[in-house]
């Protein structure tokens, strides 16, 4: 074993190096100075087949291996780190999730033009409150009929706004952490999909980076990538591979700076000989070359593991972390060798010095890479109360996962206006309505009165609001049974009528358990109550704390659109079901007794920590029930 690339790899390297030297090098300084995206270069890269190197030919790719792709990013970055990341973000982030998780239709529609280089791809995960911890994702996607409504935004998105397709992550099930995140393919140009400013960056200035803004973007259901709730898994798998791209980029930037430094060290004469023959400089070069060789082996080996479908998550994290850490050291040393000359704009080492920094930051900071690597060594930590946001922190309320957005800004009028805006945004159309006496179980919307409504004369507020909201009238059990404000068949609850429609407005209802169980399938729950501690607020999507006498007339006025059109047959807005926790690994059954090893539980008696995969059990581990050896187990 010689640890060498194949002749085919070296031919490809020569081809890409020639392209970079001829097409990019002459304009690299200009791109850097002007913060300019090299449209022509990227187009040519597509024509030459660089944009789909690791994808099968049937999807427009070049059908080459992961190592070829790593070499391509390395060679481009050797000349311009910005162009390197254009390719890396396009291939690893924008295209790979579609390749790995897309349906055949999605691959034909989106992957093929990306791989052919006709379109550019990008990946939207990072948000102001969600970077290293994807559980903080705030962009939402709500299923309505045959499409999702996407709202929110993404920051620091490489290749935006140049890219044509974006793999975007959004919350489809709130409140359950990363298990509630789903992935979508979003096209540039769709209504409501905007870009913020192109960022002004320290380095990699030839790559474009912008903010994504989603304002009620309608994403067709068929653009869901994978299944609902699989978004986090898709993002993590993508980043596993993306790290190889960034590692290659760091390697290329460092390689370019190193070569420049060697050349300069041979030319620059001080004390009568080239500075490269001064021990202080020659030792620097020796260290730089050693680090580069280490980094290259880490990167290429991770690429080979990926290509051969061997687990490579830890190795790609090591490659990314090490290559980018040494890229800072190597570019720093290179600039030092150049001395004052290297500090000048227009010098390649000056650009490389700036370009290198980003590689320790993006696609998982090097701190996160160390988390990844150490988790492979140590396994899952023992369960604790605090910690990762990927686990629900509290049991879901009775009505399931809810937004629980209590509108507090401004006075009552502003709060009501905000509520109406949210409801309209969620897709409730108040130009249509249903008769107020529609049976509860058939009603699309219900305005319901609780004991907090006060005297019977206040029921007029409920009826007015019901008419304005195009809703039927309901009540809590005591309002029908004890106060007798409405007939018995209008009380909502587990023992009464169940409301399964789209909008439930609870007025003066405190939220008894049996009432909440009767509305747990409601798509949207609005709570209006003067007691901020009422249980209903923990079970609602939107809430206003205030007196019904004050809030209800305001809301009635805000929703009143005059005569309502008869509502079309109800399209039920989908309620997210908290998805079940994915198993962390396969279960195995003992051939000696039928005992099932569950990795989530481990084997406490055998001192095997919960979370230990069967594959990671020590070789001398035996069945806790019958002492059969590990090899007597079969996959459950």
């Amino acid at each position, binding site marked *: 074993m010689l640890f060498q690339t194949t002749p085919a790899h070296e031919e490809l390297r020569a081809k890409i190096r020639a392209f970079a030297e001829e097409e990019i090098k002459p304009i690299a300084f200009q791109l850097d100075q002007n913060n300019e995206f090299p449209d022509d270069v990227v187009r040519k890269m597509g024509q030459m087949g660089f944009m789909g190197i690791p994808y099968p030919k049937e999807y427009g790719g070049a059908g080459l291996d992961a190592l070829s792709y790593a070499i391509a990013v390395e060679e481009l970055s050797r000349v311009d780190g910005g162009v390197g990341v254009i390719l890396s973000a396009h291939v690893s982030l924008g295209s790979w999730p579609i390749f790995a998780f897309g349906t055949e239709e999605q691959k034909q529609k989106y992957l093929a033009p990306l791989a052919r280089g006709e379109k550019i791809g990008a990946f939207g995960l990072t948000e102001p409150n969600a970077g290293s911890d994807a559980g903080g994702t705030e962009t939402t996607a709500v299923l309505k009929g045959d499409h999702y409504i996407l709202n929110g935004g993404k920051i620091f998105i490489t290749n935006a706004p140049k890219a044509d397709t974006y793999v975007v992550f959004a919350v489809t099930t709130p409140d359950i952490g990363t298990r509630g995140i789903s992935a979508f393919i979003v096209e540039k140009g769709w209504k409501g999909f905007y870009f913020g400013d192109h960022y002004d960056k320290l380095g990699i200035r030839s790559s474009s980076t912008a903010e994504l803004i989603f304002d009620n973007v309608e994403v067709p259901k068929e653009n869901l990538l994978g299944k609902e709730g699989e978004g986090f898994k898709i993002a993590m798998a993508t980043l596993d591979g993306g790290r190889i791209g960034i590692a290659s980029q760091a390697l290329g930037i460092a390689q370019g700076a190193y070569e420049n430094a060697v050349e300069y060290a041979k030319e620059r004469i001080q004390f009568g000989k080239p500075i490269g023959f001064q021990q202080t400089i020659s030792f620097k070069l020796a260290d730089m070359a050693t680090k580069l060789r280490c980094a290259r082996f880490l990167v290429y080996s991770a690429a080979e593991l990926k290509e051969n479908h061997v687990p490579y998550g830890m190795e790609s994290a090591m490659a990314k972390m090490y290559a980018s850490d040494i890229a800072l050291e190597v570019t720093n040393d290179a600039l030092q060798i150049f001395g004052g000359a290297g500090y000048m704009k227009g010098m390649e080492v000056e650009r490389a010095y700036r370009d290198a920094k980003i590689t320790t930051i993006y696609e998982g900071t090097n701190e996160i890479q160390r988390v990844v690597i150490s988790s492979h060594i140590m396994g899952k930590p023992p369960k604790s109360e605090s910690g990762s946001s990927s686990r629900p922190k509290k049991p879901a309320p009775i009505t399931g996962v809810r937004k629980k957005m209590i509108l507090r800004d401004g006075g009552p009028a502003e709060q009501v206006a905000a509520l109406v805006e949210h409801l309209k945004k969620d897709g409730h159309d108040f130009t249509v309505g249903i008769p107020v006496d529609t049976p509860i179980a058939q009603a699309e919307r219900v305005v319901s009165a609780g004991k907090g409504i006060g005297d019977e004369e206040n029921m007029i507020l409920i009826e007015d609001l019901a008419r304005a909201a195009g809703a039927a009238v309901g009540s809590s059990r005591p309002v029908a049974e004890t106060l007798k404000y409405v007939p018995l068949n209008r009380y909502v609850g587990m023992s009464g009528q169940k409301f399964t429609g789209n909008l439930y407005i609870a007025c003066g209802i405190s939220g008894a358990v049996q009432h909440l169980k009767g509305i747990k399938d409601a798509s949207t729950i609005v709570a209006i109550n003067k007691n901020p501690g009422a249980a209903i607020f923990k079970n609602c999507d939107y809430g206003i704390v205030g007196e019904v006498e004050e809030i209800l007339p305001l809301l009635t006025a805000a929703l009143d659109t005059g005569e309502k059109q008869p509502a079309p047959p109800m399209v039920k807005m989908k309620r997210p079901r908290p998805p079940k926790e994915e198993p962390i690994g396969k279960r195995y*059954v003992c*051939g*000696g007794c039928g005992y099932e090893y569950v990795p989530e539980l481990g084997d406490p008696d055998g001192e095997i920590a919960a979370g230990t995969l069967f594959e990671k059990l020590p070789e001398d581990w035996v069945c806790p029930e019958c002492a*059969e050896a590990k090899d007597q187990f079969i996959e459950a």
Partner: protein
Amino acid sequence: MHCVRTVTDNLYWVGANDHRLALFENIHPIPKGVSYNAYLLLDKKSVLFDTVDWSVCRQLMENVEYLLEGKALDYLVINHMEPDHGACIEEILLRYPKVKVISTEKAFMFMRQFGFHVDGHECIEVKEGDTFTFGDHTVTFVGAPMVHWPEAMVTFDVTNGVLFSADAFGSFIALDGKLFADEVNFDRDWIDEARRYLTNIVGKYGPHIQLLLKKAGGILDQIKYICPLHGPVWRKDLGYFVEKYDKWSRYEPEVKGVMIAYASMYGNTEAAAQALASKLCEKGVTDVAVYDVSNTHVSYLISETFKYSHIVLASVTYNLGIYPVMKSYLEDMKALNLQNRTFAIIENGSWACKSGDLMEKFIDEELKNMTVLNERLSLASALHADKAIELDNLANALVESLNEQA
């Protein structure tokens, strides 16, 4: 007097039927009896494959004695040590002092545990892949751990293609003269009892059945006879039964239809179950089976649950919990590893209705890969007209789910 049947040249069924036993394994009712099969091969050497339950030991002895015509028995092959097959080992050892015993390491350990004195005899310990020749016939031994005991093996006669399959491919119901599956209307008269046998006795060990099927898959074209330890011998249409085993052991439903299991104290929950059954039939779903869990032995419930794709559980609340019989049925589903079903829930409670939430929690947390439909029918004591829409929604959800999986 002897009572034997010929399986094929030189191979004889020497087992017996039992109609007196009420509960198989002292737990599962067997109203149509059961057979304990043992087989005798008369080659240059004579070989008895397994023995029978103690209750029919005398019949086995008469059968063997008759066929041996005064000669000694040379070999005893034990595929499975459970006492309904192994109980007569000691008697064979006493009658044929020179008999050599062939079995697995674990089976010999069990023989000693059960108190059979094998140590005075030649014990031939075999493992996966070993072969043995009795004259014209050569057999090979294949491990079948956890189908459904750890010591189990099956023996394949490569000369005539007979597979001695131990408890695999067995069934309840006494043979009563018939020996072969093609001598009865199996799909009409036997399949339900065969399913009840498999799912209740071996149901938990699906992955191990799959392993055995995979091993058998390699020699499927060479298998001419399947000789199980209970029920008929298969010599035609083997694929029919193998396919059933494959389905059951993968926990895939056989039938797209609805099983409604209700727990009712005074008939109100039962009425709701019946109303749902009618609704479903009205909507064209007629593959509906309704069971009262209190009056149906749980082994029948389990068997039907393995059969149907959709299960409706209708239960009253009892001591703020699930009705005990329903709870025991759920526990059996868990014990038998049942998976991949869609559930719907009907709950009833006169003051604090808990059964629905508790059943859903059990299904979600204790069972594997189950779906519970959102549409739940909740009753306060009894079903009234105001719940008609809920009932309809539940029926629609079931129909929709059945169609989705079509």
